[in-house]
């Protein structure tokens, strides 16, 4: 099967609606969990869900569009990080193909893998477009690493990794739980069902 045929296989009307719903989930879930005052935003939970359920390309599209739409009505900075959101969806899709969303402890590994891919794309954008600083609390980590004598690249890598690892691992574990809680009828809609037993 060619690459394009495989990509095309990920999509049908049901997938489009799933992606649209996931985009909205990404946007509203932050508001919901802000109540608990935990250091997690879960703003890629919809993206990861689509990646796991409907394949890497659908996940990538969900991530990309979330940030573009976000950029259009609240924070324009989010649009600059759209490629990062896309990679999160793709990474989630591929980790699911290797059955990493089957158990919660495997989902932790998936979360770490997603963080790594997230960093690979986020670091260049943060470094070249924003000079390493994006005006958030994570900048303190960058400043601290610079003060320790690290170069800008190293400091940004450490910042991106530390500020994302908890969020992505929690997201992956939650997604794993949600997939198990999905009604069987819905689960059956997704052909390469990633949940065993």
């Amino acid at each position, binding site marked *: 099967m060619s690459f394009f045929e495989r990509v095309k296989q990920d999509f049908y*009307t049901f997938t489009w609606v799933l992606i649209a*719903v996931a985009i*909205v989930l990404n946007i*509203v879930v932050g508001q*919901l969990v802000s109540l608990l005052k935990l250091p997690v935003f879960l703003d890629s939970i919809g993206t990861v869900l689509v990646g796991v359920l409907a394949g890497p390309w659908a996940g990538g599209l969900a991530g990309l569009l979330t940030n573009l*739409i976000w950029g259009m*009505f609240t924070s*324009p900075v989010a*649009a600059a990080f759209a490629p990062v959101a896309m990679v999160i969806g793709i990474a989630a899709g591929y980790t699911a193909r290797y059955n990493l969303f089957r158990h919660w402890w495997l989902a932790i590994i998936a979360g770490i893998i997603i963080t790594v891919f997230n960093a690979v794309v986020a670091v260049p954008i943060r470094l070249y477009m924003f000079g390493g600083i994006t005006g958030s609390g994570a900048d303190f980590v960058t400043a601290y690493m610079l003060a320790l004598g690290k170069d800008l690249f190293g400091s940004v890598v450490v910042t991106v990794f530390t500020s994302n690892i908890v969020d992505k691992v929690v997201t992956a574990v939650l997604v794993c739980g949600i997939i198990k809680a*999905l009604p069987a009828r819905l689960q059956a809609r997704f052909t390469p069902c990633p949940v065993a037993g």
Partner: protein
Amino acid sequence: MQPARLTLYVEGTSWLHSRHPFSKLAYILLTGVVVYCAPGGWIPDAAILTLNIILAAHCRVLLPLWKLSWRTLLPLSIFMLPIHGLLFPHNHTPVCTVFTVTLYAEGLHFAATILLQLAAILTASLLFVYTTHPAGYITALTQAGWPPFVSYLLGSPLLMLPAMRARTATIQAAQRARGLDSEAGITSRIRALAPLVTPLVLGAFAEVEQRAIALELRGFSSTTLRTSLREVQDSSQERLARRLMLVTSTGLILYALTKHYLEDFI
């Protein structure tokens, strides 16, 4: 739907409001390419920023543009100027010293350049967002022959958002009523995460199938061209302008790449 509250769009009939959405997108692309690839250091960036401000004033979106730009750029500058001024790795020319803390010229210059680049790109994208109604670019996409799912994916989240926000508030209230304690210790707050998020996701997913069937019934995957109630204006001059912007962008990218490789070579 209340587009005025959901998006940043400002009602108006100005020159920019009646330009084709694709022209404005091409302008954002050109801005990005000029900022990162054009020769001349900060001068082209400052020129574009000035042009954007003049355009915004002309099209009566200067006030919202001014406010949002500050809201985005001020926190960035507050972090960026001191961090790079004090700690930028290539710092060696001191500007001023207060007690034992020294600000350096290289870091300040680096931070100021980045802020200027961001300001140019930010204002260009805000000009698009302020003067383009979502329905405008969605219609433009359909007219240009893009498949219906593209318009659906860009448009429907905006329509679903208010309902989903309302549901979020209901879930919060319901879980609070059942004894969710947002002031409790960290372990119980982590445990509270799943009961908060799961109902939202499952509730939203339950609707997916109904929505998909509704779309199918209305011929969503049909490939015949449909008439739209909304018409987006386009003219041959504008098409030419768009092509020129694309050609300039490509040229500048090629120029930057050649320069980069020649520098490596020499």
